């Protein structure tokens, strides 16, 4: 600012009597209003992760709200920056300093009040948005507090569409692939993740080795897969279509390749797929350990038993020695 320090210009008025403060305020209000509408209604529907499930839609709504709240701040900063560049440029030969400001109680109170209200409001908003959509697609640990309204776990061994009985899908991470078990369909295990549309789903996420993270991007579901832990996450797919599943926890050399695709299909298509897959995989399902919420490879019954009975000295269960590595 090129004002003379000995005779500071009145606040809000500068060169040629232009009222910068008023101009900035008016422009800021107009631009903010326009940009907020654009962010929420035009950009918002395209923000990640989309709306393929209720949890994804919930996350998209949160991002839309946060983006809309942030818009006036960004507009204000950019507007002030542009205004300063345009009108408050230092003139050649002008080396005077700007007028000092020695505090303004009204501005300070306003600043603290507004920012406190925003932070507290966001805390309430965030808490509500976490609770209302049953964890918002995030892993809630083995004892989930928030469950989808109106659902129950009526049966762990059977499921049919249109009931309150929630569909159980176990997600098993292992270096470097995802497999899925469907306990309500005989406990078959497959590399395919198929889900029925408009039916609540409970993911039981675990790992056979290291820490992975199950991230069904378009469904807005993300839950860490820990060995010996059942991490529960909920969602309800709203639209049919494909979604990508990635590992979101660095888990070894092929971490980047640890992904596959899932699909949301109609109820009838899901039932057909589930019954057919159950039949096709019946032979290998018999070899699987009984369905459990976690699997400890060192405890799986009969693991290495045949090798020990044979008296093998080489492999045979030795790879699963919990004492390894000997030199951590």
């Amino acid at each position: 600012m090129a004002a003379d320090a000995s005779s500071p210009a009145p606040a809000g008025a500068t060169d040629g009597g232009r009222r910068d403060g008023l101009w900035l305020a008016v422009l800021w209000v107009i631009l903010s209003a326009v940009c907020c509408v654009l962010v929420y209604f035009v950009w918002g529907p395209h923000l990640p992760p989309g709306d393929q499930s209720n949890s994804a839609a919930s996350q998209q709504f949160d991002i839309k709200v946060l983006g809309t709240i942030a818009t006036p701040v960004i507009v204000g900063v950019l507007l002030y920056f542009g205004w300063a560049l345009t009108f408050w440029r230092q003139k050649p030969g002008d080396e005077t300093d700007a007028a000092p400001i020695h505090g303004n109680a009204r501005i300070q109170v306003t600043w603290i009040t507004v920012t406190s209200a925003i932070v507290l409001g966001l805390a309430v908003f965030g808490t509500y948005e976490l609770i209302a959509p049953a964890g918002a697609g995030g892993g809630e640990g083995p004892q989930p507090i928030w469950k989808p309204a109106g659902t129950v776990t009526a049966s762990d061994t059977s499921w049919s569409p249109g009931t309150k009985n929630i569909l159980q899908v176990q997600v098993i991470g292992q270096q470097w692939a995802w497999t899925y078990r469907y306990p309500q369909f005989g406990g078959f295990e497959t590399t395919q993740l198929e889900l029925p549309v408009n039916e609540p789903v409970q993911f039981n996420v675990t790992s056979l080795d290291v820490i992975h993270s199950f991230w069904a991007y378009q469904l807005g579901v993300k839950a860490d897969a820990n060995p010996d832990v059942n991490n529960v996450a909920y969602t309800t797919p709203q639209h049919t279509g494909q979604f990508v599943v990635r590992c979101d926890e660095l888990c070894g050399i092929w971490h980047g390749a640890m992904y596959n695709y899932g699909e949301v299909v109609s109820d009838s298509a899901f039932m057909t797929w589930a019954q057919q897959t159950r039949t096709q995989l019946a032979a290998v399902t018999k070899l699987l350990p009984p369905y459990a919420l976690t699997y400890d490879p060192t405890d799986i019954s009969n693991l290495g038993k045949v090798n020990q009975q044979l008296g093998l000295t080489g492999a045979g269960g030795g790879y699963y020695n919990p004492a390894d590595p000997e030199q951590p």
Partner: protein
Amino acid sequence: MSLPARVTTLVIAFLAVVAGVLFVALHFIGSQPPVEDYTPYASGGQVNVFLQTDPQTTVTDKPDWVTYFIQDPQTKQWVHTTYFAVPANTKVNVTILGYDGCTPLRNPYWGKVTGTMGNVENVSYFNGKTYSASTPISSFNSYAQCSVQHTFAIPGLGLNVPVASPTTVSENNNLCSVSPCVADNSSGALAPHTVVKFSFMTPKAGGTFRWQCFIPCGGGYLDGNGGPMGTPGYMMGQMEVQA
């Protein structure tokens, strides 16, 4: 210390750091196992690929690591690598000589053969003297039987092949001890092993597909997942499909 001496010390230290970074980058990151190119050897829409599993890697400085070898299609020599190239839209006939002993699968699901033609593999057992007839197998129960040693899996193609193992105590306690396991050097005879054969189609488009073993066989490492399981050239590699 004089100014020239300080400058010299600083320059030397800087160069040492740069040299160290370059060494790590070139030696560990930039290097990869050689690629055995089977592409020129395809004919009639087919190509034959030969691999073997060994219980040790005596040709490297990691002699106690299990490993795969791939046969060079021209020289017929076994090369310590897990990288190979095949043409696109081609039937790949794979033969794996399984020289390692049995280990239960961590996840029994991988005991099922998937992605091969007919969803089976054909297995012949060599007990040190004779080969059994080759029989088709669609799944293995590695918990009830001494039957599987490793797997050859290409998740991107839905391919999973459990590599059958020798089944008896004497066979498993008299495995090949020198790699590559063409012949047991101590006796001059072939060690007990299996011959696993299967076929699959490569995709019409080119690409790089990673493959791996799903039995965590890095003995001595946490849950068996380190060492050879995470090192190119041992129990994981890449298949380049050339369009």
